[in-house]
């Protein structure tokens, strides 16, 4: 059972990492980074490290994503009502 969960989580984590590197849309890439953090949180729980899991959830998935999103907003790459197409164009301009 544990084996199966770990397998799923590791696959999710690696796919998240790859997506963060390959996705054109920077906002989606940021979300993919959060996916890595979240699966890492679950892995930490399975590895009997509740303190680290909590830190990873609060800092890695929460705070870091918040900081990155604020940064994206100030960079002008992400506006709330901006369609994906124009976001990609903007990111591609860089």
């Amino acid at each position: 059972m544990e084996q199966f969960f770990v397998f799923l989580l590791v696959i999710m984590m690696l796919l998240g990492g790859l997506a963060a590197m390959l996705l054109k849309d920077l906002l989606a890439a940021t979300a993919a980074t959060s996916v890595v953090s979240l699966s890492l949180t679950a892995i930490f729980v399975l590895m009997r490290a509740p303190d680290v899991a909590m830190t990873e959830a609060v800092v890695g998935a929460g705070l870091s994503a918040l900081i990155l999103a604020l940064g994206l907003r100030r960079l002008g790459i992400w506006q709330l009502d901006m369609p994906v197409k124009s976001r990609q164009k903007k990111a591609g301009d860089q």
Partner: protein
Amino acid sequence: MQQFFSMLFLIGLLFLLSILTGLLPFATPPMLIGQAIQQQAVDATGAANLVTSVVLGYRGIDTLGELSILFAASAAGGLVLGKTVRAKKAASENTGFILQAGTDLLFPLLLVAGLYIVLHGHLTPGGGFQGGVLLATAFFLPVLVRPGTSVSHKLLIVIEGLAGASFIAIGLLALYQGGEFLQPFLDKGLTGQLLSAGTLPLLYLAVGLKVGAELAGLLANLSTEQDGENDHVA
């Protein structure tokens, strides 16, 4: 050409790391200091959470360094972003009643949760850093929802400075009493009680306040647009 070499480097790295990790004694760690700490920690610090006794006791100076790194990062971030200009009152960015009321409701909840996590750091998972982040978000959410308002930077600087100074002061007090720097003193109490583990909860409180104030300042700094910032296309 450069791409080719980079790929070559990466494949080499993957190969190297895979072989190396294959050699590691996984799941049967030597745990030389780990075992010793497990045997002594409860008696030495009185904290039920061994990670806390390592973070604040055995490796207390690491935590001081970590606090200073956050401090340095936020100071340097302030230097980069320059003068904080009061955010423009943007009427167009009205976020709506429901969001505002929801945030008002969330604020006390986040505050209590943050303080709980900070104060129970020596008993349960969590502690100053995790709780501090929650505190920071509690103070930052209103800024996000009401674009006109801003956090009081003066107050944040004072909290931040005094909390950091009190962490060091507790350490120096131990030194003054004839112990070593950052040696836990005060009564250790009964392990498992809220009021136990000597100075550790105090240290975590200082950490929590400092982290909270620092991150709130940093987030506010990142979120406020400055005059003449041309990249914002509304």
